[in-house]
């Protein structure tokens, strides 16, 4: 699932996760539009280093849930305040506009940082790193099993769909489609469960005694300390800017 990586790959996954989490919390708490625009700029830095497929990633970041876009477009018209512009009978307010632009900037800044710093961690390493960051062991194993079987089941889903297509099935907005897709999902659940029985059998055959071992090895190096320190400094800078710049507004 994870593509790219570039120079970001050389940093310890734990440091990257912590940095993004702190960045998200700070950015969400900011209000000043100029400072928020600066945080999008800051999030561009790891994004450029991560060498992610540029167009595809930017599309993903910009293509928020259709409903969220609608929500942002509605906000200027539903927030009380000073008139900004009027569209026929609808009056948009400056306050609502600021609110909507602020949300869009926050969401994009966090998403850029997340995709470039955490999205580039290999899924298994993500599980191990989260375990080191004190996520419960059961949850980590659930994550690892989920990640392991998504690709297997995706292929199985494609096979079943191909079989349906070969029999002339086409997606339409009708009852037949809904029933067929429902059967498809039900069948996938049944097959998945039977697969999990075979997995457990195979595990027991190899001496599974109710405990997994997480063997991920990470090495914290000096550059990781520098990276986290730099992140903290930048975040402190953002908070100070917000207080200097944002108060009169």
């Amino acid at each position, binding site marked *: 699932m994870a593509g790219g990586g570039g120079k970001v790959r050389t940093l310890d996954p734990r440091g990257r996760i912590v940095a993004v989490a702190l960045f998200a919390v700070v950015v*969400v708490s900011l209000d000043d539009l100029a400072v928020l625009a600066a945080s999008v700029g800051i999030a561009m830095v790891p994004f450029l280093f991560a060498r992610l497929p540029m167009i595809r990633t930017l599309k993903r970041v910009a293509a928020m849930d259709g*409903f969220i876009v609608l929500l942002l477009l509605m906000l200027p018209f*539903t927030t009380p305040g000073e008139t900004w512009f009027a569209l026929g009978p609808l009056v948009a307010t400056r306050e609502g506009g600021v609110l909507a632009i602020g949300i869009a900037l926050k969401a994009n800044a966090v998403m850029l940082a*997340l995709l470039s710093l955490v999205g580039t961690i290999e899924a298994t390493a993500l599980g191990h790193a989260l375990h080191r960051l004190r996520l419960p062991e059961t949850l980590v194993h659930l994550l690892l099993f989920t990640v392991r079987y998504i690709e297997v089941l995706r292929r199985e889903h494609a096979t079943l769909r191909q079989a349906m297509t070969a029999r002339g099935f086409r997606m339409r907005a009708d009852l037949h489609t809904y029933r067929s897709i429902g059967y498809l999902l*039900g069948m996938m659940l049944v097959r998945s469960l039977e697969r999990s*029985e075979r997995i*457990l059998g195979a595990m027991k055959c190899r001496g599974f005694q109710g405990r997994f071992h997480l063997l991920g090895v990470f090495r914290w190096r000096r550059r990781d300390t520098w990276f986290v320190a730099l992140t903290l400094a930048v975040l402190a800078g953002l908070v100070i800017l917000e207080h200097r710049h944002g108060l009169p507004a």
Partner: protein
Amino acid sequence: MHVVDGALSNEVVIAGGAIAVAGIGWGLRNLDMEKIPAAGVLSATFFLASLVHVPVGPSSVHLIMNGLAGLVLGWAAFPALFIGLLLQAVFFGFGGITVLGVNTVAIALPAVLVGVVCRRGAAGASPRTAALWGGVAGGGAILLTGLLVALALALSGDAFLPAAKLVVLAHLPVMVVEALLCAAAVGLVRRVKPELFGVVSSGRGVAAHA
């Protein structure tokens, strides 16, 4: 739908996070290592189901299938659906980080609730009654999800009230589709492998059925 970072008030985000942590913790409590393979494989199935688009009228929606997840996984739906949302956020850029708690509650809490109410019916006497309860679970879970998202928006400020109402309306067609899909899926499972509705959620391990 996935709420993004920065849209909700701090109180709502924190409350969502706290409820999510409690729900995930409770869900993990019953999940011993013997059940992890079954829960993981099913969790992967629901992750894939959420990527399937089905046509509705002239448009299309992607599935959530949290009702079915609740029937199959019980309380384990909380951690399983959380992992799905985490992976979607990290690798696909859907949703956000600080709102992960709110998004998890909006999807997993309805799953657990309909699971508790409808499980007995879905494992019931005939495939026909099972399908009926499956439909109730599938539709009910989406309705509750819509209401919870609307509640999160409405609690975040009066400016969000019109959007909150729109969220509930937007979930209605999805509700009908998921009710039909879930009814078909449950009817099939009831005929082919009825023990599916108890493997992860009951006290017994998978081995008991193997």
